[in-house]
């Protein structure tokens, strides 16, 4: 990471903070930007926060709509880059957290999304990406009481819209 741009904001100093909303505008990339490139949860000496609602909105552009690789950082260990939002991880520092809302707005550029028939099912792609997202945030064996809402809005670049099969 070196001199990468991180936000030096420790929300642990905000005793009354109830709602945290982050909108991330990511550059074009074949993988989703790693959460740690933008924000991270430090092991702060501050007491646990009072946050009740966390909303993250991600605007991203990609050329490879493959859920197997998109949510990984492309490194050898194939570790997900968004495990920071795993409910078990969050619960430790944010015991009052009751709701996580994650909205992905994913724009897919042309030249990469055609399958063998020349078209790609938007609903199929959205379904798989959304499923992967939910698994990232709340694996089936999790017993969290946090209400997790994930939405994924996949759009193809506007000039290719007439080729979609939805």
């Amino acid at each position: 990471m070196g001199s990468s741009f991180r936000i030096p904001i420790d929300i642990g100093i905000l005793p009354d903070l109830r709602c945290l909303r982050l909108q991330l505008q990511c550059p074009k990339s074949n993988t989703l930007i790693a959460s740690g490139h933008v924000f991270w949860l430090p092991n702060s000496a501050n007491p646990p926060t009072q946050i009740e609602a966390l909303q993250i909105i991600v605007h991203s552009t990609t050329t490879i709509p493959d859920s197997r690789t998109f949510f990984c950082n492309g490194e050898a260990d194939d570790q997900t880059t968004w495990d920071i939002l795993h409910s078990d991880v969050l619960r430790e520092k944010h015991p009052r957290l009751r709701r996580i809302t994650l909205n992905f707005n994913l724009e897919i550029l042309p030249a990469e999304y055609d399958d063998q028939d020349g078209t790609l099912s938007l609903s199929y792609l959205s379904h798989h990406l959304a499923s992967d997202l939910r698994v990232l945030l709340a694996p089936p064996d999790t017993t969290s009481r946090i209400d997790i809402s994930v939405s994924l809005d996949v759009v193809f670049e506007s000039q290719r819209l007439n080729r979609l099969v939805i």
Partner: protein
Amino acid sequence: MLLGLDLPPEIVELFIDGLSIHLGEIDSLRTLLSCALVSRSFSFPARRKLFSSIHFSMNPPILSPPESRFTRSRDSLFQRIGSFSNLIDAGGALVLLIRELHINVDRGCFILEQQSGLHKVLDAVSHRSKNFETFSMSGPFSRPFSWNSIPTGTMESLTETILLPSLRHLAFVDVEGIPISMVINHPCPLSLSLIRSRFALHPRPSESSSLLCLKSLWVDRYMRDFVDRFCRYRRNLHVEHLKAAIFDRQDAKAVWKFIQETKDCLASLDMYVRALLCMLRHH
């Protein structure tokens, strides 16, 4: 009485509320105008919707969808402002229905000229409206205008309107050199939005120890300038909701500095982060 039906007021209200959602459409506007004339029971709720939010613009969105680029002439704009001013002067309690005032400044800043008559509308609102809550002013996109370029008469009326105790929401878009005194001297907690807008740089600021309450604050662009020109002179801040756009490390530092100033009362934090810089450096 409508077609022999005596509708309960709450049903009429629901009907009118449903129309007002689509006030941006010309058909809904026409329907509301008809409702204002159809019967006594429909008249007041319809007029309340029609006059609750007033927009002054040379490019009225209701008549000019983006593709049409309809623009009024300077004379036409002045005529319409004059007609509206006469209407609220003659309309008795009509001015009490005005809750929001939105001014879109054209590239020539014609609307701010003394001849436009805008100051008459503002004076009517500031002197007679008890329910006025929201004021916004937008400059031409990508060509922000300076507050100092506003003619004296219009500026005085604007200042008086903004300082109304009933005002709760104040927004500037593409405006430079806004007097910081309008916020600092405001008698009640405000929700303040500064979109691509900046306060004026005060050459000799005075330190104030009084508490400044802002219900919410939204700063998009110029976060560093905001902190530099605002927070430096105000130590006692009470901000409950903060929304900020962060484009680089300096913006992030400015947000962090602001948060530290008001950390004990911040209940919600909403940040827009552009991660482009991060990725460029990373690779």
